[in-house]
Structure formats: structure tokens, C-alpha cells
């Protein structure tokens, strides 16, 4: 029986180049035992507002620029002043920090919000993830799973 998860994992991104990294991390976590988490792929930060109701923990995975070398990964606890200074994109200026601040004002924000960002290089249509960004996605997904004690799928762990 699937128990009701109170952990929301969201990957924000698009199918273009390194912008896929948020989705890639979320998909790797989704491939674990999905009873433990709700995983959603978002195209814009405001998608998150629809999924937060009843959640206690929110983990956001996204591409970022301006935080370090390409392929480096970073995490922040919300609220963080650092987030405002980085480049996050959003329709009609609804950036990720704005969406989180709005959710907080509206009482929708889970108690714990952790944001993971992977520094990206290119977002060209048709391009796949850069090598260093893809490698970072694997490490970030594993780190999130360990921190939240998300087990591997039973069959997978049986053969391992």
C-alpha cells in the first residue's frame, strides 16, 4: 500500500541541454522506491504552487548559473539571501525565490525547503547534458536519497 508522502521532490527545467539537470535528478530519485516521495517535473517555478499542499518537506532541483564552476553543485536552505543574486528564470518575472516567497505568504510553503542547484554551461535545443553536469546529477540525486533515507526499489536492492 502506498502511504501518503509528505516529501515533494521537484525538478525544474526544460529539454534543452544542461537545463535538463533538474529533471534528471528528479527522475533518478523517482526510480527509487516512489512510496517515500512525490516527484514532479516542472517547466516553470510557479508549477510548484500546485503541488505544495500538505507537504512537510520540499526539495527543489534546478540548473543555476553564477554559483561556481560548471558541474559544481550547491544547496541552500530557504530562506537564503544568496538565491536572489543568482540567475533563475521564470515567466512574467515569477522567479523561484518569488514563488517560494509567495507560497510563504499564502501559507503553502512546507516547513523545510532545500534547494539544489547544479552550475550549467549551455541550454541549446537538441543538446544533451554536458558531461560534468550529468556527473553532478548522479551525485546530487544520491545525496538527496541518502539524506531522506529513500531506499532503492526492492527488486533493484535484491539484485544489488
Amino acid at each position: 500500500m502506498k502511504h501518503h508522502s509528505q516529501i515533494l521532490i521537484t525538478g525544474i527545467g526544460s529539454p534543452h541541454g544542461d537545463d535538463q539537470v533538474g529533471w534528471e535528478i528528479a527522475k533518478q530519485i523517482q526510480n527509487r522506491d516512489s512510496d517515500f516521495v512525490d516527484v514532479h517535473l516542472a517547466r516553470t517555478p510557479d508549477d510548484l504552487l500546485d503541488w505544495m499542499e500538505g507537504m512537510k518537506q520540499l526539495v527543489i532541483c534546478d540548473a543555476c548559473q553564477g554559483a561556481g564552476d560548471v558541474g559544481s553543485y550547491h544547496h541552500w536552505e530557504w530562506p537564503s539571501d544568496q538565491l536572489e543574486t543568482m540567475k533563475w528564470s521564470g515567466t512574467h518575472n515569477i522567479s523561484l525565490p518569488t514563488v517560494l516567497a509567495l507560497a510563504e505568504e499564502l501559507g503553502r510553503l512546507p516547513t523545510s525547503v532545500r534547494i539544489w542547484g547544479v552550475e550549467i554551461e549551455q541550454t541549446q535545443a537538441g543538446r544533451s547534458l554536458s558531461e560534468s553536469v550529468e556527473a553532478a546529477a548522479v551525485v546530487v540525486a544520491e545525496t538527496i536519497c541518502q539524506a531522506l533515507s529513500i531506499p532503492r526499489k526492492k527488486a533493484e536492492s535484491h539484485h544489488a
Partner: protein
Amino acid sequence: MSNRTIKVETLTRVEGEGGLYIRLNGEAVDEVRLEIYEPPRLFEALLRGRPLEDTPDITARICGICPVAYQMSSVHALEAALEVTVSPEVRRLRRLLYCGEWIESHGLHMHLLHAPDFLGFDSGLEMAKEFPDEVNRGLRLKKHGNQLVDMLGGRAIHPINVCVGGFYRLPKRKELQNLISDFEWGLNAAVETTRWVASFEFPDFESTDCEYISLSHPDEYPMNAGVMKTSSGDLIEVGNYEAEFEERQVPHSTALHAIRNSTGRPYLLGPLSRVNLNRDKLSSTARKLADEVKLEPLCRNPHKSIIARGLEIIHAYEEALMILRDEPPKGKSRESYEYRAGEGMSATEAPRGTLFHRYIVDDDGKIVEACIIPPTSQNQAQIEADLKQWISHVISNDEQETARKCENLVRAYDPCISCSTHFLNVKIERT
């Protein structure tokens, strides 16, 4: 008062990037420029030589807020070139898709982008502290619009299910019915929203010489078909669009300005024009609300565009509910066609106004020529004309306040600068 320049460096709560420059000579306005410096996006050139089937998905990429309008104008124009007539069922579903886009776009603009101007907040975020219920309502309306576009278009942004001749896939009865209860709530919420915005205090301002233009159709509120109707009483066939409306390059904008050839004057497209010219075709609830809130028969106050958007959301919910409750579409999802050389054009009503597309195709089904005239670029000259008039109402020694009031007016038109070529900066100069 000395001569001066006022420049708003970043106009917020508009889609895209641009600037506003105002030069004053004492109390007189010397020059107003809506500066759009976003690089040209060259979609028309991008389409040349490509299979015509690529056009709806490529043109949808012009805008993340109104992709449906771009898809619709393109498929209708291509269907005209190929002499394809779609079934009435497909036509209804296309209107349903439009309803989704209008609900999403208007819902967001009214609650999070425009309402803060009337209530004295710098942003929707600031407003959420004191008006959480209204902001939550706006977000829910936006979500309904996205859900509808997602269901019918395959995804909420840049839908992929629209094709020349119809749809790749028709929705199932259950998919349509699943939305009904949310849309019933939404209709009531749209009525509440319209009453709420109509209660705002509106500046006493009229755009005296503005000519309002929109599509008009004898049987329906204009979305995807009709002739161009003007507030001066003219009717213009869509086939004469380029003869009647002339695009002009101006040095301060990468988007082309437009004027009416016959008058040499700017004109306004969008919700206020549509309601002004087609009020009798609004849904019954929207018509009653227009009377209840005492919207003038020909409203010339651009700040009241927010009321027109409210009426259009009500209409969109009501029409959407009618289609959702109806028998689900049967039969083939799209008409087949043979390639033939030809030319076709179409105008449809994007949330921000009339969007014109024209294509020439060859015998091999390739695009030879494309022409796309978006609503925001057509509105630019009228926005500048209105600003010139508005400044005399709001000018003061407090340049920040003057600039803020100018931004308020620009936001009333909900310009989508990304479509027309992205930020807006305002600069006022006194010489």
C-alpha cells in the same frame, strides 16, 4: 519647472524587456518612446524552407503566455492556403483551447500583475500579504487555464497537439468531464473577480482619439474567426489586413510600429477593444456583469481594461463549460490535405489582441514566405499616444511617482514584449 528626462530603467510586471523614455520641456511633453530593445527573433525567416507541418509548433514558441493564439493563427492561415475546412467539432475544440489560454493569461495578469497598481502594492507578492484570498484565487484561475491547455494541447505551455487540419488526438469524454467541477467553481470565481476589479478606483482618464479594432463575428464572441471591426464603423476583411495596416520601423524599437493606412493613425487591439465592439456577443453572465458594473458602451479608459479582462474570463469559463458538458467529439481528428502552391492568411484574437499570420507555401509543402504581425507591436504607437496624454494628468516634481504612474498605464495594456520582438525601462528627460 525645468526641462527634464524621466527614465524608468526596469518596468516590471510586463512580459519581456523594454524601456520607457519621456522628455519634458517644462510642463509640455516633447517626446515619449516605448523603447523595445530586445533583439529581433526572426521567426519568419526561420520558417522559410521548412515543412508547413512544423509551423504550429515553431510559432507556438514565440510566446509562453499565448502560444495557442500563435498556433491557431498559423494553422488557420495554412488551412486557407491548402483549402482545408475543419469539422465543426474541431472548430469547437479549438475555441475551447482558446478559452484555456484566455483564462490563464487574464487570470495571471489581473491578479498578480495589474491589481497591485490599484491597491498600492509594488508586486503581487506584496499584495499577497494583505489579499491572500484574491491571490490564491488568481493562481487557481491560472491553473484552470493551464489544465485545459494541457488536456487539449498535450502540455500547458507550448502545446503540441494542434496540427494543420485539426488535432493529432481528440480528447476523451472523461478528460473533458474531469474539468467540469473546477470550471463551475471558476465561473463563480471569475464573476467575483470582475466585481472586485470593477470596485477599484479608476483614474479619470480617457484616450480621446483612440480607434478600437478587433475581430467581429456575427454568431460568436471573436476568438478564431471574423472580420476586422473598428470603432469608427469600418469592416475590414482579414484578406486586406496588410493593405489596411502598415508596419513601420522606428529607431527606438526592435518591434515594428503599426498605423492604419487610411487614417495614418495608431489604433488599439485587445480586451477593451473586443468588449467595446462585441459586447452583445459576450456570454449571458458576462453581459449581465458588464451592465451591473456599469461599464460604458464604448469605454475609452485604458485603466478599465482590467474589467474587460474579467468579462472575458467569465465568457471563457461559460463557453468552456458549454463545450465540456456537450457530447464528446467523434469522428476523425483531422482533415487530410494535398500539397498545393498557394497563399493563406488568418487573424485570431490572442489575449492581448488580434494576431495576423500570412504564409505562402509551395507544391512540396514547404514555407516560401511567412508574415507574423503580433498585437503588442501593433499597440505600441497607441500606447505612446496615450502616455503622452496621460503624462499631463500625472506630471509632478516627484519623478519617481510620475514614472510609477506611467508604468501603471503601460501595464494596463498587458504588453507582451517578447512576442513583439523582453524588460521595460522608463526614462523622463527635461531639457
